[in-house]
């Protein structure tokens, strides 16, 4: 029985950066994949043993953790947030560079003294990372889970601090926020389902090596 493996890719920004890496590894998605208006969710590739799905970045990790996709591309921000024991992250693809940071309004930053904090409220897509980050220095972070437009939270008084991805910092500046602390450097990783890696060591191992070379 020929196995068909599924590679989960995140929609949006990263997708454009992943495609050249795939191409270098000899993986060419079917033409429809490039069409952003396509409603299809599953795509064939030039390799009969590999299919691609396009899902939200957080869902890439979930699909791979549960073995619905054997491979995926996810930022280590997502991996930190979920911490799925079933996911391996063997290759740093060296794309999607940004950082996960704490930001707050510029005027607050001028007078703020973080050493006095015992409890803060933070709007974020990353409640687990945020809580762990602040707990490590003895601060209880109450997280307000948002799915996007984090920068609005301080401006509209939802809470004063946010934890979000920052790449150029332009969005922060536009909303009069300043980055006060970096939690982690973020790059996209090739992720692999643990069971798939162990039970198809040659096939999955081969794909991982192809992509490792392409990313180098």
């Amino acid at each position, binding site marked *: 029985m020929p196995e068909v493996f599924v590679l989960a890719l995140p929609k949006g920004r990263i997708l454009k950066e992943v495609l050249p890496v795939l191409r270098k590894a000899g993986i060419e998605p079917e033409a429809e994949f490039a069409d952003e208006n396509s409603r299809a969710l599953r795509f064939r590739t030039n390799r009969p043993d590999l299919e691609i799905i396009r899902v939200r970045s957080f869902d890439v990790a979930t699909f791979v953790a549960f073995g619905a996709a054997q491979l995926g591309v996810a930022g280590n921000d997502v991996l930190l947030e979920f911490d799925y024991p*079933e996911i391996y992250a063997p290759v740093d693809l060296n794309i999607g560079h940004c950082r996960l940071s704490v930001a707050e309004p510029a005027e607050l930053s001028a007078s703020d003294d973080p050493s006095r904090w015992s409890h803060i409220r933070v709007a974020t897509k990353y409640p687990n990372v945020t809580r762990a980050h602040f707990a490590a220095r003895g601060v209880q972070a109450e997280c307000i889970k948002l799915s996007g437009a984090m920068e609005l939270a301080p401006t509209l008084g939802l809470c004063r601090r946010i934890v979000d991805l920052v790449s150029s910092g332009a969005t922060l500046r536009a909303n009069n926020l300043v980055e006060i602390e970096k939690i982690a450097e973020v790059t996209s990783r090739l992720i692999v389902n643990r*069971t798939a890696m162990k039970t198809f060591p040659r096939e999955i*191992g081969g794909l991982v090596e192809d992509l490792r070379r392409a990313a180098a």
Partner: protein
Amino acid sequence: MTSAPSSKVATPPVAENFLLPAGLADGLPPEAGFEAAMVERLMASFARWGYERVKPPLLEFEDSLLAGPGEAMAAHTFRLMDPVSQRMMGLRADMTPQVGRIAASRLRKMPRPLRLSYAGQVLRVKGEQMRLQRQLGQVGVELIGAEGAAADAEVLLLPVEALRELGAPDVAVDINVPRLAPIILADLPPEARMELIAALDRKDTARVSERAGRHKETLLGLLRSVGPVETALPALLALKLPAAGEIERANLAETVALVRKAAPDLTLTIDATDQRGFEYHSGLAFTLLGRGVRGEFGRGGRYVNHAGEAATGFSLYLDTLLATLPVPARPKRVFVPFGAAADIGMTLRREGWVTVQGLSAVADARLEAKRLLCSHVLEGGRPVAVDG
């Protein structure tokens, strides 16, 4: 019909009372029967290898349950107060430490190596991310008082054979050496060591390169070696290891050779960086996997029991098996209408039929047979298929 007076409390909706706590579930036919049959067959497989069954209690005093190898299960264990002795008891979260305790205490005079098997339910305070059940059926063996590759190979080959006999598809074994990374990193402060071990576990090459310092070459070598034994073992043998690590590696090589000889077609991989779930293991360990199977069938490995004896064993978890293996079709059941001759049922059962006795007279026996999920109905003294 009159409406109920308002002073009376309304009966709550019944369905709500059926809710079970998170991670607990009812086993129903036919799965519950299938699970029990699976346990029987596994225990029979173990018995054929010379393993004899023990039956530890559900509850033990905390001090004994969580001593020795049980210590690692402390965070997973439910506690309750014993009203009789006023001492704290724990509800077992894993049977391995219990069997270790039995071997070290009541069976201490039995000749070694001692081969014991067990089957039972365990309870955990929290489900895992990928396995939300808090009650799990556990089946396994312990081989106590034996060191070396021959013992490691026996305990690895036994579940493979048993799983194959059960019909589990494409069993694969990942051999692990959870002690190797801690040995290599022995000179680091605990925090740095833990961080690197976690990064190795996730195969996070980027983080390992960044943090490993002078251990970088060895650790990246370990990561590169992960894979099929045929490539992993030579890669591992080429690495420079501390003396304690060399001993682990030599035992690994010897075990792999024995396993390969006995099971040439088994999918066998080595991952010397895997740490997960090997809380109390002290030597060679392994994970039992299946192609396309979520989670794992079980895991096993070497540890030191309460009396300081070398021991190894494995546990299979029934939830994975149950989710993987197809539940066999219901056996042929024959409906015996009310009032049939007294001895007919007994005769049929002796012939291997499952009989379902009618308890009152019915107009249409064939319809009644169908209603009660019977494949056959007794007509003219013989079972006749209800369809056809």
